[in-house]
């Protein structure tokens, strides 16, 4: 009989597969994990505290730095919350610009996930494919607002910059190319036997568990729950477009992989329609008071970020600064299920499961 010894192992905080600064203390019995304790806070910058001394326009750049691979959706949730509180109307062209950049951002974000996830599992070249395509999106964003990652693009009442000449056409070209690239991705990876052996049936949970843990985004939809805030509680202009909500059924890492790739296709579909309907002219900034002071009261606004439900809870006392600003970060909530999934798994699967949840540490720690 083989006798094993219990081993306490620190994974992180600098381990590359954590995609940031994150530590998991795992207790190992041989190769099998018996206990896992996530330790976080290494990237905690106190965004919510800082925001209490800033006006709403000044907070927008801070939201860029929460989920730094999906800054556009973060911008949007804050602006949307303030607009809703103040009852502002947004010009249609501005709303279209927002929707287009948000969907491009979703594609870019899922590409980062796809590349790095496969890198975690051991496939090096997909990373280069994904990042070269993502670079095209970042290039387009750069043209639009002069930044590749931290855009500070949206404002309460609209967007800061109008699309430069020919930009919409360049996005159209990108969308067309991206369909073909997606086919290539599937050919390259999705049917690979080694890959399937690594992720099929790993990190499984059912719909009831997912709901109990408050999971959202692909982590929830992989169990078959058709819940996408763009459909369930439509915001922006999403009710004008025709798109599906892809769902899985087994709730394992493979389903999460498939759901995310299918979501890229759906985002491209939305982009197709949005670019076609894009109004030729119009304002990009609504009529907004010079000083943004939401009326006394509170609001909780949520939208679908690439990682799930990102929410913004504002308590206002009628000042230019929020009295309390709280972000519901999908990465933070989704990560809660990790210790439960890891128990009984082997050490090699730890990276597969953690990667499958798709966390961004800037958002976990806020």
């Amino acid at each position, binding site marked *: 009989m083989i006798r094993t010894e219990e081993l306490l192992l620190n994974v992180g905080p600098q381990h590359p597969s954590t995609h940031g600064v994150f530590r998991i203390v795992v207790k190992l019995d041989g190769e099998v994990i018996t206990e896992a304790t996530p330790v976080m806070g290494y990237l*905690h910058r106190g965004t919510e*505290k800082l925001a209490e001394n800033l006006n709403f326009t*000044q907070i927008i750049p801070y939201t860029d730095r929460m989920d730094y691979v999906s800054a556009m959706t973060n911008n949007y949730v804050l602006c949307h919350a303030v607009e809703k509180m103040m009852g502002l109307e947004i010009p249609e062209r501005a709303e279209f610009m927002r929707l287009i950049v948000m969907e491009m951002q979703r594609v870019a974000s899922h590409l980062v996930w796809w590349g790095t996830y496969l890198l975690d599992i051991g496939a090096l070249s997909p990373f280069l494919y994904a990042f070269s395509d993502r670079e095209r999106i970042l290039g387009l964003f750069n043209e639009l607002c002069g930044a590749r990652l931290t855009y500070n693009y949206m404002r309460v009442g609209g967007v800061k910059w109008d699309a430069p000449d020919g930009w919409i056409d360049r996005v159209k070209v990108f969308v067309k190319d991206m369909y073909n690239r997606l086919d290539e991705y599937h050919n390259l990876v999705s049917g690979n036997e080694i890959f399937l052996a690594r992720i099929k049936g790993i990190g499984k949970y059912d719909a009831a568990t997912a709901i109990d*843990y*408050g999971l959202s985004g692909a982590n929830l939809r992989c169990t078959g729950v058709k819940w996408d805030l763009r459909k369930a509680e439509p915001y922006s202009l999403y009710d004008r477009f025709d798109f599906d909500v892809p769902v899985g059924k087994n709730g394992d890492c493979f389903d999460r992989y498939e759901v995310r790739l299918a979501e890229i296709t759906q985002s491209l579909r939305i982009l197709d329609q949005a670019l076609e309907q894009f109004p030729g002219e119009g304002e990009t900034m609504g009529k907004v008071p010079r000083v943004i002071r939401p009326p006394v009261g509170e609001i909780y606004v949520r939208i679908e970020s690439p990682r799930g439900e990102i929410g913004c809870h504002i308590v206002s006392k009628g000042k230019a600064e929020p009295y309390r600003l709280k972000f*519901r970060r999908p990465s933070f909530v989704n990560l809660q299920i990790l210790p439960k999934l890891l128990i009984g798994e082997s050490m090699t699967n730890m990276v597969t499961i953690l990667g499958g949840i798709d966390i961004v540490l800037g958002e976990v720690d806020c």
Partner: protein
Amino acid sequence: MSEENNREKEQSPAASEPEASESSASESPASIPVEASTETPAVQAQPETTATQVETPSPASAPASTAAQEAGEAPPVRKKETDEEKAARRKATIEAKEAAKVAAAQAAALASAQASQPVTDGNTPAGKTADNEGASLENVEPPKPPSPNQPRLDRVTTLLRELAAEDAVEEAYINEANDHLPTFVVKSEHWLKAAQLFRNHVELSCNYLRNVSGVDYETYMEVVYYPLNMDTRECYAIKVRADREQPAVPSVTPIWETANWNEREIYDLLGIDFPGHPDLKRIMMPDDWVGHPLRKDYVPLDPEV
């Protein structure tokens, strides 16, 4: 970077207002028409009374904009236009809302007539939230048609009173700004029972807890829960208040697993205790940190940071 700063200023005149008033104060005796100079004292008084003026934007911003004109900044004509237009648009939206609500109001009146218990809380705090929407709005619209969610609010209030405790609900109102969200203030000692009701009762069955926030109101602490029923897509806000010196709210982690880390975060940043939580310890700050940073009376260890 400096360009960026300028842009911010353009966006937020909060920063540029004091400058404008200062410069106009120094220039006004020499170069300004009579009408404007009568307004200068008001502008000069501004810095001392900012705290009160912040509450009432419209009267304060009018002299400020003329001051800005004298200082050679943004043209006030545009500003005036926006104000007028804004008022007109507000009026229009209110009228539209009213028209839309008429049907809902009739339905609500019917439903509340049927309800066994006359709801006293329902109407008064609803008026309170109307206040929140801004004083001008309240003035334009004296009789407020009941919200489409009013029957649901009444029904849940009744349920909580019958099944949790008679005095479980301190307040119940509709948060109109937030899509007419039914909001309840539940007493801390009855919260656990009320939470079970929200989770398990057939009519509610809120299986998904979407968010938990903690707020420091300086006189008391508040934890806000946002449960959601994924099938009917009905959402609620539940507020539980706690004493500020020894804040404690029963943990709902056994009911919704989502609450686990959220409560840990609130404990870490606001110092609210959650009795019944399986593993209440700091999550963001280091374990040996002193104090709870999001509290309003928090004094940072190093003021430079």
